C-alpha cells in the first residue's frame, strides 16, 4: 500500500494505492500511520539548547547578571510544534536559602509565568527571570526589558509555553536571557536549579 501527494500547475492530488484504511483495519486488526497519509513517517524532530549549563559566576548584590541561552528547533513535516519551560525549584543553596523568582517592576501587578512585564535594572527589584527574543516566541515579550518568572514544578505549576508554531518545515531559533539580581541581604552560597525545556510536535 502506498500513498503520496502529487501536484501540477493547476491540480493537487493525494492518492492511496492498495487497501483502504477500513479494509486494512478489518483484516489486520490494527492501523498504524504517522500523520496525514503517513506524511511525517520519516520526519526528524529536533531540539538543541546551548549551553547545557548557565553559570552566573560570582553574584554581586544590586549588580544584575544576564546570561543567554540559544534554543533551536526543527520540526520536519509535522505541522507545528510547541516548547514549554519550567524550573524544578527556585534557585537555592544546600542550606535551603533561596532567590525568589522575579515579580518585575510592579509588585501590585506582577509579571506571571504566562505574562511578561517590564523589569528594569534600576529600583532595586530582585529575583530571577527570563526574557525571550525570536520569531516564534510568546508575544508578551515586547522588548528586551520584558521578563517572566519560571513556572515552578515544586509548586505544581504547569510548564509555560514559550515558543509555538503552526507551520511545517521550520527551523526556529530563540535567545533566552536569564536575569538574576540579588539583594545585599541575600545569604552567601552557590544557588542552583534545573530548567527543563519540553518540545512536542504539533498535531
Amino acid at each position, binding site marked *: 500500500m502506498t500513498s503520496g501527494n502529487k501536484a501540477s500547475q493547476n491540480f493537487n492530488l493525494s492518492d492511496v494505492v492498495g487497501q483502504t484504511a477500513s479494509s486494512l483495519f478489518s483484516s489486520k486488526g490494527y492501523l498504524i500511520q504517522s500523520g496525514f497519509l503517513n506524511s511525517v513517517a520519516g520526519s526528524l524532530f529536533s531540539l538543541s539548547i546551548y549551553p547545557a549549563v548557565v553559570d552566573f559566576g560570582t553574584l554581586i548584590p544590586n549588580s544584575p547578571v544576564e546570561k543567554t541561552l540559544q534554543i533551536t528547533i526543527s520540526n520536519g513535516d509535522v505541522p507545528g510544534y510547541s516548547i514549554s519551560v519550567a524550573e524544578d525549584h527556585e534557585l537555592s543553596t544546600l542550606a535551603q536559602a533561596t532567590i525568589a523568582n522575579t515579580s518585575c517592576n510592579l509588585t501590585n501587578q506582577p509579571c506571571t509565568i504566562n505574562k511578561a512585564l517590564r523589569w528594569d535594572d534600576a529600583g532595586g527589584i530582585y529575583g530571577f527571570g527570563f526574557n525571550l527574543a525570536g520569531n516564534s516566541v510568546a508575544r508578551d515579550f515586547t522588548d528586551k526589558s520584558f521578563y517572566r518568572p519560571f513556572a515552578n514544578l515544586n509548586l505544581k505549576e504547569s510548564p509555560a509555553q514559550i515558543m509555538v508554531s503552526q507551520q511545517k518545515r521550520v527551523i526556529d531559533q530563540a535567545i533566552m536571557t536569564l536575569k538574576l539580581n540579588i539583594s545585599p541581604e541575600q545569604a552567601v552560597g552557590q544557588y*542552583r536549579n534545573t530548567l527543563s525545556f519540553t518540545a512536542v510536535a504539533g498535531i
Partner: protein
Amino acid sequence: MKKDKIMNYPAAELRGILCHPEPRLNRGRGIFQLGKIPPLSRRNVGVGRNDYMVSPEAELRRIIRLNIKNKKYHKILFADRFTSRVLIFFCGFVMITGLIMLKIKPVEAQSLSLTISPPLVEIMIKPGKTVTQAYKIRNDGEPAIVKISLVEYKAGDLQASPDYIPENWIQIINNDLSFNTPFLLNSNQEKQVILKINPPVNTPEEEYYRILMFSTSPNPASQFSQSSISQNLGSVILVSVTRTGEKLKAAQLTKFAIPALMDSFDPLIVDFDLQNTGKIYIRPIGEIKLDGQASFKILPKIVLPNQIKRLVTDNSKTDGQELHSLYLPGFYLGKHQVNIAFTLDEGKIKIEQSKTFYALPWKIFVVLIILLFAAYQYWKIKKREHA
C-alpha cells in the same frame, strides 16, 4: 602583586574566590594563582559549605596575607600589550584553522541536542492485537544521560500528571532499555527504540493520547551559582482502541469571522474555529475559497475530542496576539464571498459554509469628505471676507 590593591578587592568577589578550591586573583593584566590554603584556615572558615564563622572577606585577606608573607602565590599569566596581541592572534588563528580543518561545529561542544523520529504515531487497534513501532533517537550534542518515559498528553498541558499510571500494555521491548531507566547516549550516537502496543482483550474502547518522552539529565553542579539545563523531546502517540473501527465523528464550526464591510486597502482577515464534538480525534480535509476562484488548502491538523482549534492554512498569519486562518493583503472592491468546505478525515461527513462581505475604500472617502468640508468652509470664509 601589590598588597594594597588586593586589599581593595570587592567584597562580593572575595566570597566567590574563597569558595573556589584553587583561588585565583585577577589583578590588572596578571592572573595570580594563590598557594594552597592551610587546612586550619579552611576549618576556621566554618562548619558548612556555605556558612562562615568569620567573614569571608577577613578570611581571604588572611590567606592573601599568608601568601604574600610566605611568597606562595605565583603568576600564571602575565602579558604586556604586544605579547597579548601576538598571543590573541596566534590562539585565534589556531582555533579557526582547527575548526575549518576538523569541520567542528562549535555549538556541539556544550549543547544539548536530541533528534527523534517519527514525531507522531497514530494507531487504531482492536483489543487483543499487537503492533510495534520503531523510534530513532540521535544525540548531536555532548554525551547525555537519557531516560524514556510515557506521559499523558493533554492538549495545552505538558506537565506529567502525578496521578497518571502508564498502561502496562505499552512497553519497550529492547533488551537493554526500559521506561524510566537512564542510559548513556554518546555524541553522534543513534539508538533505536521499539515500542510494543498490545491492549488486552478486556481493554475499554477508549482514546489513549500519550507522549513517548526522551529526557536528558542535567549536568553535575560546578562551584558557582548556576542553572542546569535538561531537555524533554516528545513523540505523540494517539492510540484508539476499538473493536469495529467505527467511532462517532462529529464537529462544528464555532467561529466564522469575517468583516461585513472592509476597507479596500486592508488585508482580508478570516478566522475559523472548529470544535470536535465527537468521540475520536479528527482532521479537517478541505479548502477555503475566495469568490469560488482562489483556494487555500486547510492544513489537516488533528483536533482532539472537545477541543476547539483555529483552522490554519499556508496563508495563516499571527497578527499581534492572534493567529488568523487567512491573512490576504491586496485590493478588494465590491461584493465578495468566502466559502469553506471540508470533510472529517477522508470520511463522508462534510461541513460547508459561506459568507459574503463588501469592500470599499471608505477610509479614503472619509478623508476626502473631511477635505471637501474643510475646503467648503474655507471658501465660505473667504467669500464672506470678500463681501
